């Protein structure tokens, strides 16, 4: 008999997942606010509908909800883009936008928790590489990115990834392979060797 997830387990799961999920959404939609909205929607849906599920089912369910919410965002964007192009004259200027984006919280210092890189040059090199990989992830086709993230980042099995992506295991393998080759070629072009 499966044991249902307690509130603490659900909370722990969300704490563990939220950052990766945010990055995942950010790679997909290229917009911080939209990515945050997607994460909040996904968390709400999971908590409202599936909080009574066993704890081991939560990652699979959350990923499925997340992918569906991202797809919903794409659909809404398609409809909105029609109206925004029609009424583009009413959009605020860049100056207004920069003031709007200012957030007092961003002035706070991040606590230096990571201690795996001691040297500043190594830290810089790592930061550059991460930046490159993030950009490469944004370039990747949606399905390849989805397959790569689920398989290598979320460490899900082929079967689980296939369930979330609603395709066959063979398709997942193909998407993963293509994603890795594309990322490798992008990094090679930039002179990065892993």
């Amino acid at each position, binding site marked *: 008999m499966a044991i249902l997830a307690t*509130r603490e387990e*659900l*909370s722990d799961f*969300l*704490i563990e997942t*939220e*950052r*990766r999920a*945010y*990055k995942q959404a950010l790679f997909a939609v290229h917009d*911080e606010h939209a990515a*945050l909205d997607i*994460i*909040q929607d996904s*968390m*709400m849906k*999971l*908590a*409202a509908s599936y*909080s*009574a599920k066993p704890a081991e089912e939560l990652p699979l369910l959350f990923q499925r909800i997340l992918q569906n919410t991202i797809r919903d965002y794409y659909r809404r964007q398609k409809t909105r883009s029609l109206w925004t192009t029609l009424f583009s004259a009413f959009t605020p200027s860049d100056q207004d936008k920069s003031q709007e984006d200012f*957030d007092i*919280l*961003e002035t*706070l*210092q*991040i606590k230096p*928790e*990571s201690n*795996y890189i001691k040297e500043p040059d190594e830290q810089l090199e*790592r*930061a550059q*590489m*991460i930046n490159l*990989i*993030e950009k490469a*992830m944004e370039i990747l086709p949606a399905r390849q990115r989805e397959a*790569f993230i689920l*398989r*290598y*980042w979320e*460490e899900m099995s082929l079967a689980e990834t296939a369930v979330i992506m609603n395709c066959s295991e063979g398709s997942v393998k193909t998407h*993963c*392979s293509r*994603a*890795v*080759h594309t*990322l*490798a070629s992008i990094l090679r072009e930039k002179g990065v060797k*892993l």
Partner: protein
Amino acid sequence: MNEQELGREIAKLLDYSADENIKQSTLYRLQSARRAALQNSQSTLEIMNSGNNTSVYGEHDEHFNTGKLLLLILALFAFTLVSATYWQFLEKNKSTVDTTILIDDLSTETYFDNESDLIDDLLTETYSDNESDLTDSSPAEARIYDESELSNDVPTEAHIDHESERVDDMPIDARIDNELDEWFDSNK
């Protein structure tokens, strides 16, 4: 480096990115979203009852008693209504049970043709059946059928033939005696 190793290496870098490369304001918003989701989950779970007069979190739920009581009253009301209707139905049909059973045995064609006559016939037949049962071992209907079968099996021409055959089969002396008897009777 093979495909899987390269994938894992990139995933490791993405992990570092998720740990370090997120703004404080974004982290704060993520935390707010998580809290909102958990509150939403708690309010959802409070509605769900475990069935032991307590909610999932072990808190007393007053609404559960009211709902249970209402359900019980509804069930009792429904039971009373059904039993009363059934009792009425039984009372109504109690006097005509025998007739209903007899009518039910008849075919639909006979029911439409001559309902009252048939019912009367049936009643008399049953009476005669009962009487015959008391007197004889064989039923009256069976006897009637046997007779009709005997009479119906032989055609009328055959009957005539049989009679003439009987006359023809008689011996000549007997025929003379008969003729003499007829002549004496006429001269008397």
